[in-house]
């Protein structure tokens, strides 16, 4: 079974530029999460999708961050314009829509550096 795929793996941009990250979850997984992991900290949830609907985006900086999951499969996270403090690893995770399963499966992440 293929894992969670993310691209690109690394991205360097200047502040005020825009950037987009892509995530393809494990096949059949209904729930998709985007986490932000700043160096030296644990991951923090940005947004959670159930199929193509948003479940939780309370910690998403909506003035600059946006995310979509149009067909309930892959997802895109965008930052526009980027700030220095957005430098972080962006992790995508997915989990089945199964009340007996609690595990989230993580992708390798995209490391963003904003200069």
């Amino acid at each position, binding site marked *: 079974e293929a894992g969670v795929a993310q691209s690109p793996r690394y991205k360097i941009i200047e502040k005020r530029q825009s950037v987009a990250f892509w995530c393809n979850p494990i096949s059949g997984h209904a729930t998709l999460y985007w986490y932000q992991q700043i160096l030296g*900290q*644990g991951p923090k949830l940005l947004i*959670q999708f*159930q199929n193509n609907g948003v479940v939780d985006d309370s910690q998403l900086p909506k003035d600059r961050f946006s995310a979509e999951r149009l067909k309930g499969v892959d997802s895109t996270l965008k930052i526009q314009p980027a700030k220095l403090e957005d430098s972080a690893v962006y992790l995508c995770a997915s989990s089945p829509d199964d*009340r007996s399963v*609690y595990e989230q499966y993580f992708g*390798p*992440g995209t490391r963003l550096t904003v200069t």
Partner: protein
Amino acid sequence: AQSVTQLDSQVPVFEEAPVELRCNYSSSVSVYLFWYVQYPNQGLQLLLKYLSGSTLVKGINGFEAEFNKSQTSFHLRKPSVHISDTAEYFCAVSFRQGGKLIFGQGTELSVKP
């Protein structure tokens, strides 16, 4: 507010020695508890989880953890570590099935020969 505290940011240990990574959480409701491991330049991998039942849970790679409700702790242990266990370890809680994970700040385990 719910939170997770990992009491040690770095834990150096010699190979074959035992290790304990400490985790405390704050919550007024029932929680599900997890330990994840992150190797350099990789995503997080689940080591073990506590959902209910026996308070001692066993995971992959010889790790185990004990849930202590009275002390609101979920410490991770391994009786004998290997060089390959060198990684960042994260404790996390969730408050409902399928809900977001709230992570601690991580503990860097460094195993020395």
